[in-house]
């Protein structure tokens, strides 16, 4: 630490940078410690690969971006904001970081807070604002991103009331903590300002804290933005080399950290503040070689770098070289208006300040105090903050009804009207405006030459201001240079939009606890433990875990599902159906409500009976389906699909509350009150009879689509004769508490095979029963599904009815639900596969007519209509099973001419529809699929092709009911 000022000592901490060991003091930032060790080059720039050093001293830093390697790898961190700690290991970057492949082991959290006044920034203005607000009795939160209060006071060494400013700041902060209802958050960056005074902040609690970082979501009645100002650079040749540094940053290093950022400095300035910096550096022992004041016409026209790539060796001023290792730059000050701009506030270009400042009236209840609104004197900031903090009569009316007010007026310091933005030159290819994005004045020239005229367009064309420093040093400079090139005023051109986050935030922080199992609630049924212990694999259906299938030892999914399917079709299976949505609908208007919401009639349903129903949206498209059970004249139990349970309840509530408040109906979810077991298969009646001795189970006494209350396995139960497989089946409902007891009793019979959702899907698809959301997609009507019968012709109206009278609803090319049989009975066509008409296929060419060509498996055959003369269709099974076995040179089998290849035409290929469900069927002994096909019911028997990868799989269109079309199995 050769470059440490006398009197600045502290606890020594060891760290490494680029693999080399160094020492620094507690309280240093990584940047301060590196400068103290004489490290100048931190990394290289992102596109040009130029050496880059430390340019700033805090969040404005565009250059010194590092990768933290330990304790946890973190990319793209500003060296100027990392507190030094023992064992820190960092490496410099070439403008891009590396995401860690390891999960971040640290804990992150979030919290909500409300306050009367949120003060952002604990500099002179923020501290006086917070104190003044707290003394009115307001609930105050003071959020500041620094380690210690005082803002720039420790950087400048200025005094308040005759005392060192940093001591004054500590005293004010200490007093604030003692006041009731005041919360001081240090190391907390407010990153975004949203509607209705909602602000988001990130608190960095340190590597040793239980929670490394915490997100604060703060709703404030009033906000005081005391966010300070950033010094900005000047565009001149070589202004990016290590050793070029903002004057204010150099001042911060000598005063706050006791670090000398160089030995011999040149100062290049457009204003007075750099003289204060020069004085402080000289006091600290840095030799000030020369001050080039642009106001006197003295300009830095170039920087000469050392041969060792380590930065500035000399500075060129008006043709002569001045030896120096440090070049301090001060191009003026930009009020930090990011959060104000995000609040919806308008900005105004102030010619006297040569900066964008807040302009009233404000969009939200916000005040801007101190240098954030262009007040650049310490005394001015102190009084400004006090006015902003105490000026609030806390309102009692709602926040959203308030309008903003203008900030208190304050005299402005004397500043020059004419502002130097860039040093004129022949070649602008090393005049940088955005160091992090490597954007030069030459790039801006190119952008305007191709016709771009707005700052927003130039930003996107050049990427200026898009780096993770959010353009803190580059934004205004870029606007001013573009304005200069275009010959317009800076005010006229304006700035680009300021966006959150103000400082970089990691995804881990924003995710907080919402990771892994806590990301989304997991819902399990009463029988879940049994499923787990019996080896079930699970499928996520919404938030529910549903048993997918129950593989036995040695079984893969295909084998397990085929076995479960056979069990249901030939014996008895049981499925946990508890996740189906259940809504209890009560009240004298219940039947009328259901008549209006379902396409079919529900009011005629007898107590004790059950009816299947479909609900549509007003546009006539299927929204949900399920069964309706009539429990009493004024009470129904409605079931929904698992995924739509909440949506259907909301749908009922919406119509009841907004359109039909006259209907006396209450709806409530009882999904988790009832555990449900589907008992299905030809043996289910016997199994049920054995478990429910009081229940008369013959078909006449207990017909299809009725329900009975009884006891099953000694448990109070409601048994419904409902089938979703086409087999004789029952749904047994018991209290959720007894779900597992019922399930175990059913399996204790030894006659029942548990089956999962995959088997349920196969069985229902064999019967052509659609799954809403799988076989439908919001563009499908009941008629498209082949369910004309469920659309009432008698009811005067129901939701969706009017849409069926549209001419478009009668179009013959609407997509119908049909079955598909792949011509190869083993070919499984993936769900989602598109379907094409053979007529659009293109022959591949005559050379393929050579009889000795090898035909790979699955090759589609040319259709007679497009086949060249003399071509003959081959039995497709021969192609898929045998033709590829033909040897070149072998004879062609007797009676078979060889065939042409076909392929898809050039895109866009006309598509007829797509596969919605596709399975292997035990009952059919082959694969099959359901599909939505344009005019599908008129295409039954036609061959279509399903492009899968490079192959075209031939399929035949069939009726959508493929198994037991007569419904003979329903009653066992």
């Amino acid at each position: 630490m050769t470059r440490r000022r006398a009197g600045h000592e502290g606890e020594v901490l060891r760290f490494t940078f680029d693999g080399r060991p160094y020492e620094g003091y507690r309280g240093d930032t990584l940047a301060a410690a590196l400068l103290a060790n004489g490290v100048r080059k931190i990394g290289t720039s992102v596109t040009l690969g130029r050496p880059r050093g430390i340019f700033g001293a805090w969040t404005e830093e565009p250059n010194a971006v590092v990768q933290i390697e330990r304790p946890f790898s973190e990319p793209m961190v500003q060296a100027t904001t990392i507190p030094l700690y023992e064992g820190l290991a960092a490496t410099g970057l070439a403008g891009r970081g590396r995401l860690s492949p390891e999960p971040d082991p640290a804990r992150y959290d979030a919290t909500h807070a409300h306050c009367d006044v949120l003060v952002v920034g604990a500099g002179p203005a923020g501290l006086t604002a917070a104190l003044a607000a707290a003394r009115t009795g307001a609930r105050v939160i003071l959020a500041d991103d620094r380690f210690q209060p005082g803002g720039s006071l420790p950087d400048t060494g200025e005094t308040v009331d005759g005392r060192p400013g940093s001591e004054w700041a500590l005293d004010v902060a200490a007093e604030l903590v003692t006041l009731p209802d005041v919360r001081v958050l240090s190391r907390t960056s407010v990153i975004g300002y949203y509607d209705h005074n909602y602000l988001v902040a990130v608190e960095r609690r340190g590597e040793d804290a239980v929670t490394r970082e915490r997100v604060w979501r703060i709703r404030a009645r009033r906000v005081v933005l005391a966010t300070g100002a950033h010094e900005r650079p000047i565009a001149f040749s070589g202004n990016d080399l290590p050793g070029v540094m903002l004057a204010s940053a150099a001042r911060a290093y000598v005063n706050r950290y006791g670090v000398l950022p160089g030995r011999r400095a040149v100062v290049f300035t457009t204003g007075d503040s750099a003289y204060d910096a020069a004085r402080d550096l000289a006091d600290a022992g840095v030799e000030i070689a020369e001050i080039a004041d642009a106001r006197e016409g003295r300009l830095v026209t170039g920087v000469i770098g050392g041969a060792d790539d380590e930065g500035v060796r000399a500075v060129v001023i008006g043709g002569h070289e001045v030896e120096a290792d440090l070049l301090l730059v001060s191009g003026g000050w930009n009020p930090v208006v990011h959060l104000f701009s995000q609040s919806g506030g308008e900005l105004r270009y102030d010619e006297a300040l040569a900066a964008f400042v807040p302009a009233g009236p404000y969009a939200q209840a916000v005040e801007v105090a101190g240098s954030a609104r262009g007040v650049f004197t310490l005394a001015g900031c102190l009084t400004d903050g006090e006015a902003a903090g105490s000026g609030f009569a806390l309102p009692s009316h709602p926040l959203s009804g308030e309008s903003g007010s203008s900030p208190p007026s304050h005299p402005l310091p004397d500043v020059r009207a004419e502002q130097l933005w860039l040093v004129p030159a022949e070649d602008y290819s090393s005049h940088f405006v955005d160091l992090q994005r490597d954007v030069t004045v030459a790039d801006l020239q190119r952008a305007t030459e191709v016709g771009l005229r707005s700052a927003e367009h130039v930003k996107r064309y050049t990427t200026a201001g898009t780096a993770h420093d959010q353009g803190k040093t580059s934004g205004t400079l870029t606007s001013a240079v573009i304005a200069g090139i275009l010959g317009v005023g800076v005010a006229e051109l304006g700035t680009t939009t300021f966006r959150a986050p103000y400082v970089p935030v990691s995804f881990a922080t924003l995710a907080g606890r919402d990771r892994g199992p806590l990301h989304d609630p997991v819902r399990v049924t009463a029988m879940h433990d049994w499923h787990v212990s019996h080896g079930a694999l699970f499928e996520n259906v919404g938030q529910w875990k549903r048993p997918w299938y129950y593989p036995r030892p040695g079984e893969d999914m295909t084998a397990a599902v085929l076995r479960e399917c056979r069990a249901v079709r030939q014996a008895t299976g049981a499925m946990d159906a508890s996740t189906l949505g259940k809504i209890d609908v009560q009240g004298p208007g219940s039947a009328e409500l259901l008549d209006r919401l379902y396409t079919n009639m529900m009011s005629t349903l007898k107590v004790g009976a059950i009816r299947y129903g479909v609900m549509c949206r007003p546009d006539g498209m299927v929204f949900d389906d399920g069964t309706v059970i009539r429990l009493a004249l004024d009470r129904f139990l409605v079931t929904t699909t698992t995924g739509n349970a909440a949506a259907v309840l909301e749908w009922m509530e919406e119509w009841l509350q907004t359109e039909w408040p006259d209907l006396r109906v209450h709806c409530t979810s009882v999904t988790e009150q009832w555990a449900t077991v589907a008992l299905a298969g030809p043996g289910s009646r016997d199994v049920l009879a054995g478990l429910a001795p009081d229940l008369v189970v013959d078909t006449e006494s207990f017909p299809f689509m009725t329900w009975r209350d009884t006891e099953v396995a000694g448990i109070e139960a409601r048994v419904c004769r409902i089938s979703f497989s086409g087999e004789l089946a029952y749904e047994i409902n018991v209290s959720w508490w007894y779900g597992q007891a019922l399930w175990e009793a059913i399996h204790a019979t030894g006659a029942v095979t548990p089956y999962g959702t995959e088997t349920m899907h196969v069985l229902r698809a064999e019967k052509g029963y659609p799954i809403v959301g799988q076989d439908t997609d919001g563009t499908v009507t009941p008629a498209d599904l082949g369910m004309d019968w469920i659309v009432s012709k008698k009811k005067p109206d129901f939701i969706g009815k009017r849409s069926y009278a549209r001419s478009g609803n009668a179009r013959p090319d609407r997509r119908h639900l049909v079955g598909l049989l792949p011509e190869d009975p083993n070919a499984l066509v993936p769900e989602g596969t598109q379907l094409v008409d053979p007529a659009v296929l293109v022959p591949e060419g005559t050379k393929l007519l050579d009889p000795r060509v090898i035909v790979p498996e699955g090759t589609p055959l040319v259709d007679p209509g497009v086949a060249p003369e003399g071509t003959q269709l081959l039995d497709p099974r021969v192609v898929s099973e045998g033709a590829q076995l033909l040897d070149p040179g072998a004879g062609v089998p007797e009676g078979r001419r060889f065939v042409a290849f076909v392929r898809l035409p050039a895109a866009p290929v006309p598509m007829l529809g797509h596969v919605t469900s596709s399975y292997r069927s035990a009952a059919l002994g082959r694969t099959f699929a359901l599909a939505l096909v344009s005019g599908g019911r008129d295409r039954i028997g036609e061959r279509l092709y399903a492009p899968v990868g490079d192959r075209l799989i031939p399929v035949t269109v069939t009726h959508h009911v493929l198994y037991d079309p007569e419904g003979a199995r329903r009653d066992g």
Partner: protein
Amino acid sequence: MLLIPCPWCGPRDEAEFRYGGQAHVAYPRDPGALTDEEWARYLFFRDNPKGLFDERWNHAAGCRRWFTLTRDTATNEIGGPR
């Protein structure tokens, strides 16, 4: 994050609500009497003004009640519940 005044629960964060679009679009008294175009206007056409807009909200993660409020779409300023 809007602060939305639920008439039943008081001001709550926007995240608790579901947006219901333009208010006062009543279900037609006799849909069968409408032309296809009139029906399509009911189904699909909504205003999109810059400025004051009456809109429906549902306090989905709270009391589950629907209500109407007026919001300025340019400033997000919200009038009282109606």
